[in-house]
């Protein structure tokens, strides 16, 4: 896997469809998606409600499976995996950041960040060290013993990001990460994501409906009515010269 050429996409969707329900009430959320995402890209997924962007993110995040089509992650067919295999994949390669932060309440920032490491079975001391390092990366080292209730929204989202990156995943999936924050806090979060993307080479997939936030990304994918409407890779550093 490590020998995968850089040119190969990290993630490929081929003819992915998703149908919810059956018979007369069936609803086709995705009507055939083709999408390639290369490693270390920063992708913003945009589109109106019901355009299929969330469904796509759920499939990319291995939380859901396509009805038809192929999902290749590092060349492996994800659509063939069962529930627990997908869970193990998430544990190993993916990190999640949500709009509503989704931290465990009444639990310190440190314990929240430790959680993925617990499921990985890391020993106590290492758990602590890695969690503290992740908190340090998001600038909250001194807040490790605060519970979510004692943190501001921006801080909570940064704890959530620390939790997502503590396992050093390949991909960080962020679902409207700035949706609950004011513009100042939003900018800080976007700068943090940009920094993580640039410094650690982590691939960032972010759903947003705010063009200001999407502007931080290198690639912008627009969804409309269950299809990819356009892919704008003009901000991708390596591609910029060719696009101009």
């Amino acid at each position, binding site marked *: 896997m490590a020998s995968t050429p850089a040119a190969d996409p990290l993630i490929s969707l081929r003819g992915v469809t998703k149908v919810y329900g059956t018979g007369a009430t069936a609803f086709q959320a995705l009507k055939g998606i083709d999408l390639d995402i290369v490693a270390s890209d920063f992708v913003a997924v945009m589109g109106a409600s019901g355009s299929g962007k969330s469904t796509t993110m759920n499939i990319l995040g291995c*939380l859901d499976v396509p009805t038809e089509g192929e999902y290749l992650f590092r060349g492996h067919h994800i659509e063939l995996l069962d529930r627990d295999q997908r869970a193990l994949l998430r544990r190993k390669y993916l990190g999640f950041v949500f709009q509503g932060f*989704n931290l465990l309440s009444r639990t310190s920032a440190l314990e929240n960040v430790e959680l993925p490491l617990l499921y990985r079975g890391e020993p106590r001391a290492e758990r602590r060290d890695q969690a503290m390092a992740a908190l340090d990366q998001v600038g909250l080292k001194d807040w490790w013993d605060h519970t979510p209730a004692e943190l501001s929204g921006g801080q909570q989202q940064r704890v959530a990001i620390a939790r997502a990156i503590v396992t050093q995943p390949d991909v960080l999936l962020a679902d409207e990460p700035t949706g609950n924050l004011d513009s100042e806090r939003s900018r800080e979060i976007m700068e943090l994501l940009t920094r993580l993307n640039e410094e650690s080479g982590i691939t960032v997939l972010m759903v947003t409906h705010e063009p200001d936030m999407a502007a931080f990304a290198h690639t912008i994918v627009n969804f409309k009515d269950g299809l990819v409407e356009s892919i704008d890779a003009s901000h991708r550093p390596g591609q910029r010269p060719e696009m101009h």
Partner: protein
Amino acid sequence: MLGTTLVLALRSIRRHLLRSFLTILGIVIGVAAVVTMVTLGNATTAAVQKQIASLGTNMLMVRPGQGFGRGGGGPRPADFKPEDVEAVAQQVAGVTAVAPQAQTSVTAIYNGRNWSTTINGTTDAYFEVQPWPLEEGRIFTQAEEDAGKAVCIIGSTVKTNLFASEDPIGKRFRAGDVSCDVIGLLTTKGSQGFGGDQDDVIIMPIKTVQRRFTGSTDIRMMLVGTDAAYDSEQVQASLTSLLRERRKVQPGQDNDFNIFDTKQISDTLTGTTTLLTSIVTAVAGISLVVGGIGIMNIMLVSVTERTREIGIRLAIGAVAREVLMQFLVEAVALSCLGGLIGLVIAQIAVAALAPVMRVDWVFYPGINFIAFAISAAIGVVFGYFPARRAAALNPIDALRHE
């Protein structure tokens, strides 16, 4: 894996202290009730057996009349005669000793102190049939018995009320109109149980009692010691036929005397206390099951309430089995904790109730272990359903749950 799950479960319990406490309350009460009931029940049984043992094992109590006490109408059956005692001692195989008893009430006076008590006239055989060691002093000599001398051995209650802290040995006091020398002091048997205070007694040679107090040679009761090597039924049968013959009971007529085997009484009483203990324990056991249902109830609510948390865990990469294990371990940890608290409360309750019930405080490891094991099992049984429900949640729906 289990270590991780345990960490998660304990963290979750710590986060929801009040709810956790309410969850286990049923188990706490159930375990405490069961252990307290069984412990007190066992202690009562033990106390009853100890009392019976203090009456003497391998002993038959023979009395005139047909029932326990002298129930029924008609003329009172005659008391035994000294010759009956002789005959039983010599003619019945398996009899080691026979102690006749003649009782009367008397007021004892010493140094201005009065004490109403019972005089029990008997022979040295009494101490053979029913082991009752002396605190100090000696028992009667054959000469004293034969001569009907006014010597006596007193129980600890009489000693306390008559002599207070004085050493009674060698002292002379008045029993009714008779001056009487104290030659021995009995050890304390304890005042519990049926038959009242066993230590409230003055023991004298039977001849003395018959001559100086009752004025007759009637004997109210014989205590017959039996050899443990002989079958008690057999001894009772030959004793019965001898007494029927001596008392001229016609064939076909009922015995006009009765024989009680202390072992029989012991078995009956033990059976009764054991039955009562079982009934009370069963009732307490029901509360344990109710406690288990309480755990399931709260765990189900908890799964609903923590749907989003489960979603987070699943998104982070927990497999279904880990979520199931977390909730299961949480339920088991809770119920074990409840069990432990219940055990502690039970010990406190037993320690508080034992003196009131006049039984000894005893720790029975068996019932404590069983109660704890049951509480753990309840956690597994009643925790499984909610845990399975948590594990089956879809991560996307769980994350959206408000």
